[in-house]
């Protein structure tokens, strides 16, 4: 089990990343905040705890890969990449501006650390399967981490890829389903009921675990036990809260995409900074 200090550090880092998210939204006055904040604890843990990566050498051959299948949650990835040191944080202020290196969905040719051009839903897992096959063929131990939204589960291509992953025993794939339960039109179960998500993946031959996707210790302990079963791809159904960390938006489908006023953005900034400060103090006491 990971020690308390690391969990505290990761929680603090996630809070700083949430600040980064708000910084981008403040700069552009809009963004897909809900999904970005629901998966942010996962993305933070994957980059800061699990992945074999070097921000100074983003293309190093034996690196682990991260694919954000739900590309609209890119604020989370941008925030974490910046916090990890892939690029200066000043670039965050260009989000939404002309020719930004950070479009509304990630572009691997514009920003270091991005491995795939996602945004059209249902693409990430197929690409991950190809990466997993190619890396295994090269005798690499690298893993491919994927974050998929629960709203994109009905895309048929996901299930094509789910079949490939189990058929080829791709236990180097770690899929997080960001199960925040809400999509743009409302509750995922009402828009298109894909439950039971865990049983569906099990039926496709995956090793599956349900976790609280906003609980850092649970995320980290799960990451430490990958693959859940040798020879099977791992699907982690991460039960999360949409817009986690911003009180007004938590569990609110209206915060799928947010266009705040200056005052609203500043209030959000203040709220999250307070959280960061509290976590800093908590870390200071315990470390």
């Amino acid at each position, binding site marked *: 089990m990971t020690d308390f200090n690391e969990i505290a550090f990761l929680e603090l880092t996630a809070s700083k990343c949430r600040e980064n998210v708000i910084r981008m939204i403040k700069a552009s006055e809009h963004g897909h905040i809900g999904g970005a904040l629901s998966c942010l604890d996962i993305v933070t843990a994957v980059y800061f705890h699990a992945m074999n990566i070097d921000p100074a050498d983003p293309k190093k051959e034996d690196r682990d890969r991260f694919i954000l299948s739900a590309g609209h949650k890119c604020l989370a990835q941008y925030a974490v990449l910046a916090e990890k040191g892939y690029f200066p944080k000043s670039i965050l202020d260009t989000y939404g501006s002309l020719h930004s290196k950070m479009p509304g969905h990630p572009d691997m040719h514009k920003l270091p650390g991005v491995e*795939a051009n996602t945004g059209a839903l249902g693409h990430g897992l*197929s690409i991950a399967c190809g990466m997993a096959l190619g890396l295994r063929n090269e005798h690499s131990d690298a893993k491919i981490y994927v974050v998929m939204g629960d709203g994109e589960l009905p895309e048929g291509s996901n299930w094509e890829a789910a079949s490939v992953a189990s058929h080829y025993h791709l236990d180097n794939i770690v899929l997080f389903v960001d199960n925040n339960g809400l999509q743009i039109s409302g509750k995922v179960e009402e828009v298109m009921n894909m439950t039971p998500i865990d049983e569906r993946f099990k039926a496709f031959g995956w090793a599956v675990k349900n976790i609280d996707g906003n609980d850092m210790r649970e995320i980290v302990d799960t990451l430490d036990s990958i693959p859940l079963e040798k020879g099977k791809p791992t699907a982690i159904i991460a039960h999360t809260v949409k817009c986690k960390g911003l009180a007004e938006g938590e569990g609110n489908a209206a915060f799928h995409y947010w266009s705040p006023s200056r005052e609203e953005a500043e209030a959000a900034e203040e709220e999250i900074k307070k959280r960061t400060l509290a976590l800093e103090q908590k870390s200071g006491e315990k470390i």
Partner: protein
Amino acid sequence: MIGEYLDPRKEFGKAVTELAKANEKIVVLSADSGKSSGFGDFVKQYPDRYFECGIMEQGVIGVASGLATTGKIPVFCAIAPFVTARPFEMFRNDLGYMKQNVKVVGRNCGISYSDLGATHHSLEDFAIIRMIPGVVVLAPQDPTEIRTAVRAMIEHEGPVYMRIGNPKIPVLFDEQPFVIGKGRIIREGTDVTIISTGSTTKAAMEAADSLLKQGVSVRLIGMPTVCPIDEELVIESALKTKRIITVEEHYTDGGLGTLVSELCSTKCPVRVKRLGIPKTYASSGPYDELLAYYSLDAKGIEKSTLEFLK
């Protein structure tokens, strides 16, 4: 040997398999389509580099993209509409937008799966794939060009779409290096230029020869690269003959004819007549009869040319 009839799928598969011996990066993907794409020997020789995915063309394009990110050169061949129209968005995003070094080959192209009907015809593949920035579109015209085009396709860094047919086709040309983006002058002439691509070039050659006997001098251009088109050769032909006829086993809209028309209207306005299939769901039946029905046999091309020159 000139005139020898060979199976385009077998020639294609053989060419890839031969290159795979020296180039270990080449891997083959199948959507239950590998063996019928000429990869029987590849499967036997390189089982670790052959990935059967079953019938899931959208998934396969994504898998190919991911493989390419690891340095592999994936080759994926299946029935043309199922690797173009069906997974179009995957082609656009995962291969085009991501600039991945993947080679997609649509076989049984055009109406060559003639009797199977419109679901299995591919008459818009040039039109849709050429709209994806950075994708090369090839349509080799005979078995020799299939072999050389495969080599060029593998050597080219970036996504390529190539279409090949189904029935045996005759060798038309002696081997020469395939240069992507370059057409070839098959016959010199002064009255009209016929520009053909892929499967229709044999009929265009016969039509040109017959027209010459009737006193019509045809400049015949073979255009095995549809995109990027050989602008220099098209403009040179437009200046020389003032009139151009395009021939393709594709809709008259959106393909070679449209490309030539776009180019001429911009850089060298001349009259262009586009021969192909009208934008409809094509009928079914024996391949040769269907081609004749749509005036894509030698007689049809000849008749259309004479009408155009009236």
